[in-house]
């Protein structure tokens, strides 16, 4: 590959990253890139490099090009999505708690576990935390999918939330447990706040990442 060819590839890669970040649809990205490549190659044949034409800020050029060409863009709307996901998670958590509390009463009244039955602690913890995570993820994903159904690419965002939230919660629970252990599992406001902050950061971080992923992979 020639130096000019690799310089053109580099500019186009930068431009594509910028267009992805802006949420430009895939077919528009391809069209913009094809036209730009033809321009840069024609200029290269006349001895002009991409740097000669576009200066030192190809990302700024890509932004300006996307704006002027009027291509369809999806606004990120991170604040709205995080708010709706958070509210959905809280509602699901409260509803899930009420449901589990009710079922618990029913099961206690209906069944008797034989004496001596031992439930392994890892299984109990797994069911408890797994259940909470499942309820929270379902609440967040459904609320985003339903309440924001008119937001562009929200279906993709919800699908990616389903993928990213469970591992994020898994890692956050382990990290929160490690933090709790480091603080001797103290029930002080500082210790509880730290553990809650870890879990909340994972939740909002994974949700924002899911939105960003759905926009940058727009196509």
């Amino acid at each position, binding site marked *: 590959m020639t130096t000019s060819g690799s310089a053109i590839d580099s500019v186009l890669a930068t431009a594509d990253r910028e267009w992805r970040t802006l949420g430009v649809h895939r077919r528009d990205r391809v069209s913009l890139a094809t*036209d730009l490549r033809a321009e840069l190659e024609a200029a290269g044949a006349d001895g002009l490099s991409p740097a000669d*034409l576009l200066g030192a800020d190809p990302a700024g050029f890509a932004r300006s090009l996307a704006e002027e060409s009027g291509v369809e863009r999806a606004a990120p709307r991170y604040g709205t999505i995080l708010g709706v996901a958070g509210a959905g998670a809280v509602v699901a958590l409260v509803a899930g708690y009420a449901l589990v509390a009710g079922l618990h009463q029913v099961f206690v009244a209906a069944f008797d576990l034989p004496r001596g039955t031992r439930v392994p602690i890892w299984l109990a913890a797994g069911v408890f935390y797994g259940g909470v995570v499942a309820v929270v993820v379902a609440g967040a994903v459904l609320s985003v999918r339903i309440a924001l159904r008119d937001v562009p690419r929200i279906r993709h965002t919800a699908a990616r939330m389903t993928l990213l939230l469970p591992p994020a919660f898994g890692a956050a629970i382990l990290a929160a447990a490690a933090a709790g252990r480091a603080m001797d599992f103290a029930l002080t406001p500082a210790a509880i706040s730290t553990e809650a902050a870890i879990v909340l950061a994972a939740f909002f971080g994974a949700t924002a990442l899911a939105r960003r992923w759905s926009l940058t992979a727009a196509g």
Partner: protein
Amino acid sequence: MWRMIATDEAAERQAQLLRGCLDMCLLALLAGEPAHGYELVRRLDTAGFGPVSYGTVYPLVTRLHRLGLVADMRQPSPTGPPRKVYRLTDTGHQRLTAWRRQWTEFAGVVNATIDVHAPPPGDKR
């Protein structure tokens, strides 16, 4: 130092003025003869605007194309791959006529205003 600041201010002022009329100037430059993107940059320079970057001109031409004021066509090049050459459409010609009339009137008002309120020569107030 003062001269450098004055030069920077003049360049910034020039950029502001150009921003409002560059699309019209591009249409005017294409009205005479079709051109490709960086040929337009050369024409702007030759017309006296100084160096206007291709990074400014190309997105603007893309907008004019989107608005249907210019059309593009592929033209073989003796030095390399075919180039995209832009020409004015009929709508572009009509729009240029309207914009030219508007600009002339506007520039007339501006000129009259700054002439009337200009201090007399030698007045250093």
